[in-house]
C-alpha cells in the first residue's frame, strides 16, 4: 500500500438503493383498529373505575386516536424511515457552520449509563453527588477551554445561550443603573443572534462586513455610544475568517461600557489555540452539539453552556451545581442571578457526552481538533479553488465560503443546483446562500474527522458537477434523481399547508 491520498477511495455514501421505490406510508395509514404493541408490567395495584378516578364530565367522550400497529410494523416503519435519512454515520456532511463531525459511539455509551440516565432531576443533592461532580468538572473544563471565569450549563442550545447572555448583559448594566438599548451585530451573523436580541429586549444595529470579509471596525466604532449594551461576534466569523482586529474592537466596546458576546458556533476552529476570554469577550455560549461532538439528532437536542468573565458571575442563572467546602457537592444561587433558564439543570445527558469527549481528547487533543479542522478546510479551499473560488481568497479557519457565482454566469447552474447534484454524488450538501453577503454562497466545513480521501472524493464530485453543468446545460436543475424523493415543492407546502395527517 502506498501512502498517496488518492489511493483510498474515500468515504462517500455509496449505499446504492436497497429495493423498491415507494414512499413509506404514515403510521396512521399503517394502523388497523384493535392492533397494539404495548406491554406493561403486572403490578397488582387495585383497580378503580375510571369514573371514580376522574369526574366523568372531565373525561373525553371518544378516545384519542394515536396509532394502532403491531410491534413488528412499528419496527419496520421506523427502520424504513431511517433508510430514507442521511446522517454523519452514512457519509460526509460538509455543512458549513454546523460542525458535523463524527460522534463517538463511546459518548452514546456514557449517555445511556445506568446511574446517570436514570436519575430523577429532583433527586436531592446528597443522592446525586455523581451528577453534581460531573457537571462541576464540565464547568471547570469549559472555563479553561474558553478562558472564562464561570459557566452555566442550563441553556438548552446555542440560541438559549445567546438569550442568557443578553439577559446577563442587561442585568449587568441594570446593576449599574444603566438601561442600554442597542446591540451591534455584523451583517453576516447567524439568524439566532438578531432574534435573541429582540427577545432580550434590545434593538439590533447591523454592522457591515468589509471587503476582506471581516467586520468593519470603523463602522463598529462609529456605532458605539453609551446606549450600546454590547456586541455579538463569532470569531472566526461566519465566512470562516478570524477577526484579526478583535483586540481593537474589544477595547472600543469596553470603552463605552459595552460588553462583548462571543457566539461559540465556530469554537472548533480555535480550541487550544486562542480563547474568547483572552480575546476580550465577556460572555459566550458554546454549541456542544457542534464543537464537542454531541450528535445533532436531526435538529437537536444540543446544549448551549454559557461562559462569562468574572464580573458577570454573580448574575448567572441558578441554582448552580457547586463544590462545597467539605468536598461534597450542592447547589447555590448566585447573588444577583437572572433566574432559571431551564426546567431543571440543562440538557444533562448531552452535557455528559461533552465531558466524555473532552476527557478523551484532553488539552492537547482539543488543540489537534482545531489544527486538523483548519488544515482540512484549507486543503479543500485550495483543491477546489479553480472552479469554486473562495469568497475571500486567503488562509481560512475551519470552514470556507466559496462562490458559485462564476459557474452560474457561465452555465446557469445555481448554488442550489450544485448542492442537489452533490446529494446525487453521495455527499450531503454544504450550507447554501449563507452568509447572505456572498453571491451564490456554498459554505463547506469539512471538520477534523474527515479524511483526505474523503475531501478528495468531494473535490472530484465538485469537478464532475461543473463539467456536467458545462456539457449539459440545465441538467443540474434536474438533480437529484436517485434520492428517496426528488426536489420538493416547498412553495406548495406553505401554500397548501398540511401540518398533520388529519389536515390532508
Amino acid at each position, binding site marked *: 500500500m502506498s501512502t498517496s491520498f488518492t489511493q483510498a477511495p474515500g468515504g462517500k455514501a455509496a449505499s446504492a438503493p436497497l429495493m423498491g421505490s415507494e*414512499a*413509506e406510508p404514515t403510521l396512521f395509514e399503517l394502523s388497523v383498529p384493535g*392492533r397494539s404493541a*404495548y406491554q406493561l408490567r*403486572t403490578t*397488582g395495584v387495585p383497580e378503580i373505575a375510571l369514573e371514580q*378516578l376522574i369526574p366523568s364530565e372531565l*373525561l*373525553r367522550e371518544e378516545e*384519542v386516536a*394515536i396509532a*394502532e400497529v403491531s410491534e413488528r410494523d412499528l*419496527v419496520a416503519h421506523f427502520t424504513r424511515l*431511517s433508510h430514507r435519512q442521511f*446522517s454523519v*454515520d452514512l457519509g460526509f456532511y460538509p455543512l458549513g457552520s454546523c460542525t458535523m463531525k463524527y460522534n463517538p459511539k463511546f459518548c452514546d455509551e*456514557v449517555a445511556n*449509563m445506568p*446511574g*446517570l440516565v*436514570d*436519575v430523577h432531576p*429532583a433527586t*436531592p443533592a446528597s*443522592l*446525586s453527588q455523581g451528577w453534581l*461532580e460531573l457537571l462541576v468538572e464540565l464547568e471547570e473544563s469549559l472555563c479553561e477551554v474558553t478562558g472564562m471565569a464561570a459557566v452555566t450549563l442550563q441553556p*438548552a*442550545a446555542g440560541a*438559549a445561550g445567546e438569550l442568557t447572555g443578553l439577559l446577563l448583559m442587561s442585568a449587568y448594566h441594570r446593576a449599574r443603573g444603566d438601561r442600554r438599548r442597542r446591540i451591534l451585530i455584523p451583517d453576516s451573523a447567524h*439568524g439566532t443572534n438578531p*432574534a435573541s436580541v429582540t*427577545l432580550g429586549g434590545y434593538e439590533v444595529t447591523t454592522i457591515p462586513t468589509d471587503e476582506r470579509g471581516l467586520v468593519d471596525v470603523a463602522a463598529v466604532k462609529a456605532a458605539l455610544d453609551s446606549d450600546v449594551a454590547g456586541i455579538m461576534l463569532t470569531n472566526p466569523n461566519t465566512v470562516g475568517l478570524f477577526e484579526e482586529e478583535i*483586540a481593537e474592537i474589544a477595547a472600543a466596546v469596553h470603552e463605552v461600557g459595552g460588553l462583548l458576546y462571543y457566539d461559540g458556533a465556530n469554537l472548533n476552529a480555535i*480550541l*487550544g489555540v486562542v480563547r474568547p476570554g483572552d480575546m476580550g469577550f465577556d460572555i459566550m455560549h458554546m*454549541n456542544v452539539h457542534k464543537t464537542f461532538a454531541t*450528535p*445533532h*439528532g*436531526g*435538529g*437537536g437536542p444540543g446544549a448551549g453552556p454559557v461562559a462569562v468573565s468574572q464580573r458577570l458571575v454573580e448574575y448567572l442563572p441558578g441554582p448552580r451545581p457547586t463544590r462545597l467546602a467539605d468536598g461534597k457537592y450542592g447547589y447555590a444561587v448566585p447573588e444577583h442571578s437572572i*433566574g*432559571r433558564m*431551564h426546567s431543571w439543570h*440543562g*440538557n444533562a445527558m448531552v452535557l455528559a457526552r461533552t465531558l466524555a469527549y473532552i476527557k*478523551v481528547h*484532553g488539552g*492537547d*487533543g482539543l488543540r489537534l481538533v482545531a489544527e486538523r479542522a483548519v*488544515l482540512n478546510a484549507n*486543503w479543500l479551499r*485550495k483543491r477546489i479553488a479553480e472552479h469554486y473560488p473562495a469568497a475571500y481568497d486567503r488562509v481560512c479557519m475551519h470552514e470556507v465560503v466559496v462562490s458559485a457565482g462564476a459557474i452560474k454566469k457561465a452555465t446557469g447552474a445555481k448554488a442550489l443546483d450544485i448542492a*442537489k447534484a452533490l*446529494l446525487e454524488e453521495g455527499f*450531503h450538501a454544504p450550507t447554501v446562500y449563507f452568509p447572505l453577503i456572498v453571491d451564490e454562497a456554498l459554505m463547506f466545513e469539512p471538520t477534523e474527522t474527515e479524511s483526505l480521501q474523503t475531501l478528495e472524493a468531494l473535490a472530484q464530485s465538485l469537478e464532475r458537477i461543473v463539467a456536467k453543468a458545462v456539457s449539459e446545460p440545465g441538467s443540474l436543475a434536474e438533480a437529484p434523481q436517485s434520492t428517496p424523493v426528488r426536489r420538493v415543492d416547498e412553495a406548495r*407546502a406553505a401554500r397548501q399547508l398540511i*401540518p398533520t395527517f388529519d389536515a390532508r
Partner: protein
Amino acid sequence: MADYMPHTPEEIAEMLEFLGMDSIDQLFQAIPQALQLSGGLNLPAGKTEPDVRADFLDFAAKNSGAASRLVCFAGAGSYDHEIPPVVKALGSRSEFVTAYTPYQPEVAQGVLQAVFEFQTMVARLAGLPIANASLYDGAASLVEAVNLAAASAKNPVVWISSGVHPHWRQVLATFAEGTGHQVHEVPLINGKANFESMAGTPGVVVIANPTYLGTLDNVAGAKALAVTHGAKLVVAADPITASLLKSPGSQGADVVIGEGQALGTPLSFGGPYLGLFACTDAELRRLPGRLVGETLDVDGTRAYVTTLRAREQDIRREKATSNVCSNQTLMAVWAAIQLGWLGTQGIREVAIRSIQATRYLRDELVKIDGVSALTGDTHVTRDAGIVLPIEASVAIERLADEGFLAGVSVAALTAGGDSSIDAGLVDNTLLVAATEKRTRVEIDALVAAVGKVVR
C-alpha cells in the same frame, strides 16, 4: 491521548506541502500572536475511552438516588415510565441520531416524516390543528406560548396559575426581563386557580391541567374568563393524562403546551426533555420553531419538508417569532415511536394505571397517623401532595436508606414556597407519583417505610 482524527503524519506533511506551508502554525497566522495561547490548555491529558469509562462509572456509582438503585416515586413533571427496548432500538438508529436539521429534504425524509407523525399525535392530544416539531422543554414551551399569546392579544399582562410547574414559572420570570411581560401569579385554592383576587385585564391566561400538584383545574372556566378579557388562553397539559381528559383545544385553549418527557424520554437528570406546543390555525404565523408539512416532489411523490420558514430566525432574523434553532428533534422522533408503541389503547392504559397507583398510594399514606392529603380527598392524577408530620426533605433522606426515592419536596421545588401552596404546609409537603411501573408490593413497602420514618 486518544482522538477520532484520521490524519497520518505523512498526510499532514502532504497537505501542508500542497498549501505551501511548512507548519501547522502557519494556518493560524491570522490570529495575532499575542492572543494565542501559549503552553496549551491546562486540562488533564487525554485518556482512552476505557479509562474515561471508569471515570463515568464512578460518577454513576455516586448517584445513590438513581432509579436503578431506589424505587422511584418522584414525579413533578418527570416520570419513570416504561420505555421498551423496541423504542430504544429504533430511536437509537444512527440515521436519526447523527443527522442534522433536515435542510435537504431529498435525503431527510426519515426525520421529516417521523416529525410529521409526531406533530399529528401531539395535535390530536391537544385537540388543536397545529403542533410544532418541538421546543427545549416544558418551561421553554411555556415561554414561547406566552410570547405568542401576548403578541396575539397585544397585551403584555399575563395571569398564570400557580398550578403551573414552579420551575416553569421561574423560567417565565427570567424571560420576562427581556420581553417586558407583566406576569402575575394566580393562587391555587383547593388545587384550582382562583382568579377572584386578580385585578386588571390580562392579555394571556395560563392554567395547568392537571396542576403540578396533580389536581384538576377548570379549563372551561378559564376560557370564559379569558374571553371576558379578550385574552388568549394557554393550557399546560400532561400528554399522558391528556389521553383521558377532554382536550384543552376542544374547550377553547388557544395554545396547549406540555413537557413531553413522559413520551419515551428517560429521567435523564432533567434533560434533554421535549417541549410540546400546539395552537389554533389563527396563531399559525406566530408559531415558534420548526414545522413540517406534507407536499409533493417534482415527480408528484408525497414528500415532507419544513415549512412556513419565514417565521424562523434564519430567514426572519430579528423579526422571527422565536430565536429557537436547534431544538429536541430526536426526542420528538422518540416520542413518535413511543406513542406508536403505546398506541390508542396503551397511552390510556398508562394514564389510568398511573393515576390508579398514585391514588392507591395516597389513600394508603393518609391512613398513617399524622399524614394527610394536601388537598383532602379531591381527585388526584399522576401526582399527589402529601402532608407529613416531618419535613419532606428529611423524610426523603430517611426513605432513601429504606430503598425509596419517595417523592419530591415541595419546598425544594418552589424554592421555599409560592402561591401554589399554603405557607404553613410547604416544608412538610411531599409530592409523590406512582407510574404504571410501580407494583402494589413496592407501594405497600413505601407506605410501611413512611410509617416508620415519620414516627
